[in-house]
């Protein structure tokens, strides 16, 4: 019996879909059988980021309305043999085409065959959010170090705490080292103490995230990328390993930096 994890944020554009794709890929890299479910009906993106857009035949609404079996709608990611699948969202209907009860049944059915089911939640707190949360056992809240994203995360955590699921965990995405070290954004401690939930991990901002998403290859497949490291660490924590939080200080100081710190003493 697998575990269903919903990835949500409240605010749009903080990296829910990117995080879903990367965490799913990272879990598959760790040898787990993963199914990604895109619940953003009408505005689907997860298929694009995974590079599976061209292979969609049926979608989530087709399954729910009985036009096909689940197995027919699942799109296999060939890079991972039989370990990574996507259940794409429908693009031609809207979010009201599905009810939370139907989602719950669907996720329960998927849990039989997969270790992890990652549910990519749409932005907002309306029907789409309710559908996405319905079948989940756990929740991950994604935020960025921006006050607006943190406010929305707070709202969504409040709603999640009223659901019958485990306390949500936090991912802080798109951390820019330079800004955070210069105190121009909220730092990791500010955010976690404000939201007072467990931190699952942090992901550094990196240009390659966008570049690789555009190519349809989740960045996590590049082991040397700093953002990929963040996602890999989070995946390991989901699996129950204890991985220390990566440092956000800018690497080693240069020659002049060392000289400066000498004089500071």
């Amino acid at each position, binding site marked *: 019996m697998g575990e269903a994890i919903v990835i949500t944020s409240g605010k749009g554009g903080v990296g829910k879909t990117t995080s879903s794709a990367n965490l799913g890929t990272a879990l598959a890299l760790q040898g787990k059988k993963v199914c990604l479910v895109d619940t953003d009906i009408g505005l689907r993106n997860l298929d694009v980021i995974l590079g599976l857009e061209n292979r969609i035949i049926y979608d989530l609404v087709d399954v729910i309305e009985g036009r096909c079996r689940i197995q027919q709608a699942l799109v296999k990611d060939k890079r991972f043999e039989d370990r990574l699948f996507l259940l794409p969202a429908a693009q031609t209907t809207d979010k009201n085409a599905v009810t939370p009860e139907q989602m719950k049944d669907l996720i329960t059915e998927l849990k039989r065959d997969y270790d992890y089911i990652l549910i990519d939640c749409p932005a907002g707190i309306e029907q789409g959010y309710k559908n996405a949360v319905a079948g989940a056992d756990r929740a991950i809240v994604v935020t960025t170090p921006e006050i607006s994203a943190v406010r929305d995360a707070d709202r969504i955590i*409040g709603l999640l*705490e009223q659901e019958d699921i485990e306390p949500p965990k936090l991912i802080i995405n798109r951390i820019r080292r330079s800004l955070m070290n210069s105190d121009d954004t909220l730092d990791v401690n500010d955010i976690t103490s404000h939201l*007072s939930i467990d931190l699952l991990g942090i992901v550094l901002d990196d240009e390659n995230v966008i570049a690789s998403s555009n190519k349809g290859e989740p960045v996590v497949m590049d082991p040397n990328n700093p953002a990929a490291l963040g996602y890999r660490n989070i995946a390991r924590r989901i699996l129950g390993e204890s991985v220390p939080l990566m440092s956000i200080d800018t690497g080693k100081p240069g020659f002049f930096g060392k000289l400066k710190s000498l004089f500071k003493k």
Partner: protein
Amino acid sequence: MPKQQPKHQLVTIKGTKDGLVLRLDDQCAYADLLEELGRKTQDPGLEGAVEVKIHTGHRYCSDAAMKEIIQTVQSAGQLRVSKIQSDVITVEECNQRIREQQSETYIGIVRSGQEVRAKGDLVVIGDVNPNGYVSAAGSIYILGRLKGKAHAGNTGNREAVIAASWLEATHLIIADQMETMTDELAILSEQPEMECAYLHSNGFIAIDRLQDLRLLRPNLSTFKGGS
């Protein structure tokens, strides 16, 4: 059937130093009472406009009955009812009063978009985050950070206070007085620890150290005994 005359007076008029008090019998039939009340208050012996108080004793009067009594008394045009006093209240009213005097405790974080309301005092153990809202008929005490909106004395109690371990609210409301904390925030954030907001005698909300509350609102203390 001849009408039975009551043996004793159902309405006693007493003069006190605060004015006339109409003491109504609480054992007789309501119709008899009303009849005698009408007769007595029409008494030509009463002169000029007089303020009276009505004491209904152990008779429970519904709102409609109260209205009827007042109307009867005032129908003569000489008496004006200033106050009605009663020795009894319903269980429901009693429970309501108990609730208003009790303090309710909320443990958890009041997050954005959430509301916590209390009929009496409210104790929050946890933070009130921005866009979170706490409201109470009495005072609000927060063991944690108040970063949202708080409304104390929401039924008009101007003595109510808002106290927090960390007072960094966006809006403070006491009774009907609201303060947005835009200008004050700078001053507050330097020393937001252990503060309380109260309605100053000048009509505006003021913020002081929590320790000063014993001088500002000594009546809030319900502690009995000790030394």
